């Protein structure tokens, strides 16, 4: 396989798992705040950061199509 294609594919899969991993972290934020999900400032900041990172990974996947 062409090296560029191999690298592209690897990056796509890594980004896919990155999104999944970030969403697992988000699940823990919900779990720790259940059942009311009233987030502390700290949790809210952590959640926002995770969403941003996931969005970047999704953007990279989309850009690679």
């Amino acid at each position, binding site marked *: 396989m062409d090296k560029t294609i191999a690298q592209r594919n690897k990056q796509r899969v890594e980004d896919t*798992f990155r999104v*999944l*991993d970030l969403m*697992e*972290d988000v*699940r*823990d934020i*919900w*779990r*720790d705040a*259940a*059942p*009311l999900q009233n987030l502390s400032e700290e949790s809210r900041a952590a959640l926002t950061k995770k969403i941003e990172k996931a969005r970047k990974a999704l953007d990279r996947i989309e850009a690679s199509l």
Partner: protein
Amino acid sequence: MSFERVAIDELALNLNPLQTGGRASAAARKAAARFSDGYSVCDRCAGVLHDIEKPDIKCFAVELAEFVGMDRVAVTMGAREGKFAIFHTLSEPGRGAVLDANAHYSTYVAAQRAGLEVFKSTNTGDPDFRVTPDSFAETLEYCKSKTGKPAAAALLTHVDGDYGNLNDAAEFSKICKDAGVPLILNCAYSAGRMPVDGRALGVDFMVGSGHKSFAASGPVGFMGANGEWAERLFRTSLTHPNKNIELLGCTARGANIVSFMAALPGVKERVKRWDAEVAKAVRFVEAMESLGEIRQMGEKPKRHDLIRFETPLFHRIAENSRKRGYFLHSALADRGITGLKPGQTRWFKMSTFGFTDEQVDYLIEAFKEIARM
């Protein structure tokens, strides 16, 4: 077909003691996602599951053995599979197995499947339901008098699933040693939640549960042996010399084992907070009993997070409720709390394991509100 769960931990506080210690950590879930394909740990297998180095099952088995204080452990599909394997190793025709009075049904089934006659000790009954070393010694003696030989094995449930009583295993192991009977410690409700050291407790065998107490997806667990017993338990096949007989060659080989592996670092940290977990359970019991007509059953003060309550208060409220026996389950569900059996109001079992102090406060307030209904 729908795969939506009834109890979702992101939305509700799940009190089911069977589930609180097995709530998979993010690390465990991430690892499981990478190994959800069947036989996925076998990419680099040379024929022995516990020798696989990528993922590093070989190191994990050593690390787990150190963590629980056993000379050697192997991953199983759960605690019950480990119990059967050990009973099967020790079983001989006409021999018996001595079990504590609070043993789980799977312990009986495992012993029976291995061809052993079961001899059950007594407990102290209401209110403590404790298993005493004396009753265990008497049962060992009784087994010997009935079968003509010492029991092939004795099994002590370290923490039972009915009352959450914690047995002082070291006392029982001394009795078993004096009687010449190998002791199996069932740590399904202890190892992974609290510090456990098999060597310090003097036990010969140990089983534990990944999905019950190690924050792993499962089905997964472990069995371990100390000293010369390890040779017998982990004996290999004559026809296939690298295959363990009692493991049927290989056991967990996918998302279950890697989730167990990934969960271990977090578990090592959480057992250091065991005193805080017990304090939470004690605080919760005090708050519940202060409502009146509620009694905690089993040893007091609690030394474990599994709590059993007798709750005439809720049964009385249920009798006047339109929802009758379902009122408690329904009232809890309205408050985002789950894990109790629908229809149960006379008594229930629950666990506070892993909840934050704020979540415990929330639970206490919820039960207070329901008590006023």
